[in-house]
């Protein structure tokens, strides 16, 4: 005989899960008791939202679904923001929640919350398990759904009696068969042929690369395609890292907060090849304008994204890897005319400008740029939300590493827990969280997790004593009325670091920041670098 909780652990083992992020409580205790005897590592976070963000960072850095665990009621509801973030950013995740006894469901007993109901809009799928026998199938399906097609979070809500009940034996299914879920990965051959014709007849093509290129693992193939054809590449925020920042064909991030060259290229293009991007409003503010001027090829694993935000000439539904491989095969020896490339090169030079510095402050854009050159080429930078995110997006010179941020949901407080997850997935890589003073204060409780588990993440706090991005918006649209965007100069972040025994430093000039960054990178273990930033520094 084997009980449900043991089965849950065995399912995770069968899926090759080596670490879970979570927070216990009564309704999930049977599972925690079984986990105690397992080789699976459990990272105790300091708030459930961060378990989801850490699982998110883990998933993005490892390419495998991240797993987070919480108890029923408040534990489960605390997960929601993290689940919603993973959903919007298409991150594979399995969230496990304890639930009250199944015979008490619906009676509003202590710590009962309808979490499958509450998460309905934010999950790829969810299960409220009603029989212990169902657990193996549910886990198998959950991991399959989370990690195939367009990745996303799957929630498994398990009443405590289902965890306690015993069944005869544990058998993990080898295959899944969900009749309503068969993602189309191939890419339609005829559409691909048509796309090739369009590419060959265009004079000013541009590739827009999104997060889908990274999550499908087709980055190198796409770069190969761009190089072979000479087609320039711009990326969305989620797509940063598809190409090294200094590659001559890469024009930077597009959008409201993006690079002028990238936006200009998109504006002037006669053909846009959208790869694994949904072209949200932050990437393309006026998609109608774009589709009226240029032809659009849209490649995505999710058919619902094609035609949703921008009118498409040729839709190609499929896994980016398969489609790009086919494009490479079919295109043969083709290179676009040089005129377009030369124009873009010229724009790139024209538009470069050095930001002004202020005495007594770190210029964040110049510092991020400098920091990039000090980092190993495979470093992972996790940016939070706000101006700090834009400074990083536009100035982190990525090489072979990763740039992780929440481009879709924009959840403040993401960077520190996500960096924890990324570091656990990639212990040999340098992992850095860059956050604002506002966002750091949202999840700084995770310093506890970092210290307890000696997780060597480096944290850079851009201290402008403002909710800078909103403050900037108020300057532009609300007549400089800084309603609720001025942060106190407290807390003293150095004292906070000290309280956790984390080495730290505070910089008030770029020279200092560089000096401390060097010290930070030499430090074995976590480090906090506080950069004082001039409050009126713009985002771009």
């Amino acid at each position, binding site marked *: 005989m084997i009980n449900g909780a043991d089965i849950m652990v065995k399912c995770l083992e069968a899926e090759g899960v080596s670490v879970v992020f979570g927070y216990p409580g009564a309704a999930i205790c049977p599972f925690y008791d079984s986990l105690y005897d397992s080789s699976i590592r459990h990272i105790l976070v300091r708030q459930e939202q961060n378990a989801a963000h850490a699982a998110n960072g883990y998933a993005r850095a490892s390419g495998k679904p991240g797993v987070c665990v919480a108890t029923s009621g408040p534990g489960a509801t605390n997960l929601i923001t993290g689940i919603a973030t993973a959903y919007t950013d298409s991150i594979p995740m399995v969230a496990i929640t304890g639930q009250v006894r199944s015979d008490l469901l619906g009676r509003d007993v202590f710590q009962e919350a309808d979490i*499958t*109901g509450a998460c*309905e*809009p934010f999950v*790829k*799928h969810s299960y*409220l398990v*009603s029989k212990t026998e169902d657990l193996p199938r549910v886990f198998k399906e959950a991991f399959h*759904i989370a990690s195939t097609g367009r990745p996303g979070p799957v929630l498994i809500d398990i009443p405590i009696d289902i965890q306690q009940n015993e069944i005869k034996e544990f058998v993990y299914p080898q295959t899944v068969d*969900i*009749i*309503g*879920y068969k993602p189309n990965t191939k890419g339609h051959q005829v559409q691909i042929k048509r796309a090739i014709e369009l590419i060959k007849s265009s004079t000013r093509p541009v590739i827009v690369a999104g997060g889908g290129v990274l999550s499908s693992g087709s980055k190198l193939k796409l770069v190969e395609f761009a190089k072979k054809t000479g087609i320039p590449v711009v990326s969305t925020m989620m797509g940063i890292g598809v190409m090294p920042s200094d590659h001559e064909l890469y024009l930077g991030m597009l959008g409201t907060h993006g690079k002028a060259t990238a936006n200009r290229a998109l504006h002037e293009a006669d053909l846009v090849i959208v790869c694994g991007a949904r072209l949200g409003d932050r990437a393309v503010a006026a998609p109608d304008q774009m589709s009226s001027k240029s032809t659009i090829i849209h490649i995505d694993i*999710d*058919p*619902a994204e094609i*035609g*949703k935000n921008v009118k498409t000439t040729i839709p190609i539904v499929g896994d980016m890897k398969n489609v790009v491989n086919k494009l490479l095969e079919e295109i043969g020896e083709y290179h676009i005319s040089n005129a377009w490339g030369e124009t873009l090169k010229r724009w790139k030079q024209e538009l470069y400008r050095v930001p002004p510095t202020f005495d007594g402050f770190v210029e964040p854009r110049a510092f991020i740029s400098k920091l990039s050159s000090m980092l190993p080429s495979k470093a992972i930078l996790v940016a939070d939300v706000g101006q700090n995110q834009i400074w990083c997006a536009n100035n982190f010179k990525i090489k072979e590493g990763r740039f992780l941020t929440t481009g879709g949901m924009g959840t403040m407080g993401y960077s520190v827990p996500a960096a924890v997850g990324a570091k656990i997935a990639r212990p040999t890589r340098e992992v850095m969280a860059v956050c604002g003073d506002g966002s750091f204060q949202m999840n700084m409780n995770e310093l506890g997790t970092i210290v307890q588990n000696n997780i060597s993440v480096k944290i850079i706090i851009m201290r402008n004593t403002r909710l800078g991005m909103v403050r900037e918006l108020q300057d532009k649209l609300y007549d400089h009325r800084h309603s609720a965007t001025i942060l106190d100069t407290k807390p003293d972040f150095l004292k906070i670091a000290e309280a956790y025994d984390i080495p730290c430093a505070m910089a008030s000039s770029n020279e200092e920041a560089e000096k401390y960054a060097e010290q930070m990178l030499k430090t074995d273990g976590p480090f906090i670098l506080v950069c004082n930033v001039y409050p009126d520094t713009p985002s771009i």
Partner: protein
Amino acid sequence: MQQYTLYILVENQAGVLSKISGLFSRRGYNIDSLAVGVTNDPKVSRITVVANGDEYVVEQIEKQLNKLIPVIKVKRLVEGEFVSRELCLIKVHSSAAKRFEIIKIAELMQAKVVDVANTTVTLEYCETVEKISTLLELLKPYGIREIVRTGTIAIEKGVSESSK
């Protein structure tokens, strides 16, 4: 804005209906009616939805529904190529003097009288939405006390993909 009818085949599991109706309300799609029942395969239910919107909205609805894991198939029915019916029960106010008139209307429209009481007549009517509206118009002057409708169900004419 146009009205359209689509059917959705779903795996018969807990919460499916709320997933589907939730999707409509969340994304701001308007539903005129929704009817559910099990199919010849007891593991599969069929939902008929009548909704309205422009071409963009309809296409989005189909795609978003298809993304739901328990959804097996979504199909938009083509005008003229399907038969649709709705069942309704209508309780009409009726004095003894008017009873005969109401029953006459029912006969003309081929509605069935299912209950007669001192002050009411209840009719059963299974027809297209248009015919139901006509009957309701005719009955209005007598005073309609209560209406219960099932929502439209629809099936394609002849042999279709789902009947093969």
